[in-house]
């Protein structure tokens, strides 16, 4: 090796991650030495960390396009947008979960610490400019989430879910790593920019390149929970404590979008015609399985797990075109979907109380009599998830379908619309329970502190507002790619 002068990396560019890591350590130490049984200091410090992370990300990374740490870390608008989404979703997740975790005796300092490390992993993933930093981020996220799923150690269902998640997740990570090793073998570099350049001038090594691509696609599809790599999703959603399910269903989906865009969407864009059909296949299978199986689910968490496939299908459809508009549509879809689902899990957490999970669809019966506000929130969320015009879910679907039609896959758009219509059944069924059915027994009772209720109501109303004025968010998503 030549004796090059060592270049000190620009630490300022990676300030959001540095802040999060430092604060995660602070949270750990503070919680260690605090005697508060409710872990109040850890909770508040975590929320301050996440809010501070949002401010730092906006001020240091939005509109920037630079790399640091020898190209392994990319600071750009796309990363900034996804990071802000992840941080806000984590903030909501922690805000909704405090009472639930306390009632079940699993409110531990580790919950906040592992949550922060999972968020840190997601942030590293969406800012990766190198296969190594990408994999590092994915693993940090995954390992933290495996442990979070199992945080309720005495629940056999949670342990089972964690074990399944861990074993299948390790397999998927192996696939991802194997594909990456193929890419490294062909190009001799780990830098995503150089890999993109190498992919553009393909020669006789094309075969090995595609081999690696297939393996990486499997790994990424697993992290998305796209059919046919979806086996873990329903069991993990059902078995994990609801706040952890919220984290997996929202923030980690946004991170998976970042993973796909960095690794395949932008990294291997020259191979578009090769991966386009794989993505189409994943999207079609996800739409079919998701909608049909969700119809018969009676557990809200399982129903949301299966309906996730439907939405993952839509997100993947945005990637099909391989254009900035398509990618922007996917990011818009993922962000709005995640916010809507975060509020949906928030309602489940609101109605849950000691010894009662409120995760059966009939548990929502008569919610309008008990709490008109939150019945209205459920109404907004469900019609948005269905994609009825005037809601943010409609704009998201419309943007994705537009990009797919422009890419020439009209049949795919038709299939997706049929799927959305089928989806209306199981989403609107919840609305019917809230408004037109009488409560059985005690019925749903909103519990939880005033702060929790205020944040949840704001979350629901923001979904409504975003549906009426989607322009700003659309413009932000487009700006991240141009």
């Amino acid at each position, binding site marked *: 090796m030549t004796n090059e002068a060592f270049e000190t990396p620009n630490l300022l560019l990676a300030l959001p991650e540095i802040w999060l890591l430092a604060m995660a350590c602070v949270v750990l*130490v503070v919680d260690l030495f605090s005697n508060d049984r409710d872990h109040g200091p850890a909770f508040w410090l975590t929320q301050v960390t996440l809010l501070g992370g949002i401010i730092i990300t906006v001020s240091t990374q939005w509109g920037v396009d630079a790399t640091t740490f020898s190209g392994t870390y990319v600071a750009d608008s796309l990363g900034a947008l996804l990071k802000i989404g992840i941080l806000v979703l984590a903030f909501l997740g922690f805000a909704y979960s405090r009472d639930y975790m306390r009632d079940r005796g699993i409110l531990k300092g580790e919950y906040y610490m592992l949550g922060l490390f999972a968020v840190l992993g997601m942030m590293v993933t969406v800012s990766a400019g190198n296969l190594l930093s990408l994999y590092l981020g994915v693993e940090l996220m995954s390992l933290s989430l495996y442990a979070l799923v199992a945080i309720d150690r005495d629940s056999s269902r949670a342990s089972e879910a964690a074990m399944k998640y861990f074993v299948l997740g390790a397999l998927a990570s192996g696939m991802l790593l194997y594909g990456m090793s193929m890419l490294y073998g062909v190009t001799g570099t780990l830098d995503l920019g150089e890999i993109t350049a190498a992919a553009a001038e393909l020669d006789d090594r094309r075969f090995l390149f595609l081999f690696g691509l297939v393996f990486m696609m499997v790994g990424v599809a697993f992290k998305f929970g796209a059919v046919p790599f979806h086996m873990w999703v329903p069991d993990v959603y059902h078995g994990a404590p609801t706040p952890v399910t919220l984290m997996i269903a929202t923030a980690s989906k946004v991170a998976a979008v970042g993973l796909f865009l960095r690794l395949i969407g932008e990294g291997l864009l020259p191979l578009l015609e090769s991966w386009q059909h794989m993505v189409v296949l994943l999207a079609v299978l996800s739409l079919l399985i998701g909608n049909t199986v969700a119809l018969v689910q009676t557990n809200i968490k399982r129903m949301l797990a299966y309906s996730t496939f439907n939405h993952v299908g839509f997100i993947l459809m945005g990637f099909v075109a391989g254009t900035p508009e398509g990618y922007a549509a996917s990011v818009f879809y993922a962000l709005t979907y995640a916010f809507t689902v975060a509020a949906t899990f928030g309602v489940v957490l609101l109605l849950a109380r000691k010894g009662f999970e409120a995760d059966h669809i009939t548990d929502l019966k008569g919610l309008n009599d008990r709490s008109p506000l939150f019945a209205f929130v459920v109404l907004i969320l469900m019609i948005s998830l269905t994609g009825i015009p005037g809601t943010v879910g409609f704009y998201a679907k419309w943007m994705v379908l537009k990009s797919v039609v422009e890419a020439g896959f009209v049949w795919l758009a038709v299939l997706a619309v049929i799927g959305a219509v089928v989806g209306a059944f199981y989403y609107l069924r919840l609305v019917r329970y809230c408004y037109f059915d009488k409560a059985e027994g005690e019925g749903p009772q909103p519990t939880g502190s005033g702060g929790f209720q205020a944040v949840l109501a704001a979350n629901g109303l923001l979904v409504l507002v975003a549906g009426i004025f989607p322009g700003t968010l659309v413009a932000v998503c487009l700006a991240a790619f141009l």
Partner: protein
Amino acid sequence: MLENYLPILLFIIVGLGVGVVLLAAGFILGPRKPSEEKLSPYECGFEAFEDSRMRFDVRYYLVAILFIIFDLEIAFLFPWAIVLDEIGLFGFASMGVFLAILLIGFLYEWKKGALEWE
């Protein structure tokens, strides 16, 4: 490109072949006259003293994990110390951060009582 791997393929085939053939030869050609004495378990020629499936404390694992962490720390510290002149203040600060993170982990483990033996 792929033909470069031919020697490795040959090595795998020959390795597998030798292993399988030797085992099979012993299995097929060896004389076998089992008796009760031959089949009974023994330790160093004596009758078995006790059940070998004994339990041992899960805390051994914690100590083992701690050992690996600090063992690796030393493995990083040696090369770092040798090139300290060249990597300058940034290298020094980087190792400081690394040690601080390890220290926090150690603090956590200690405070949680993982090191209490009784």
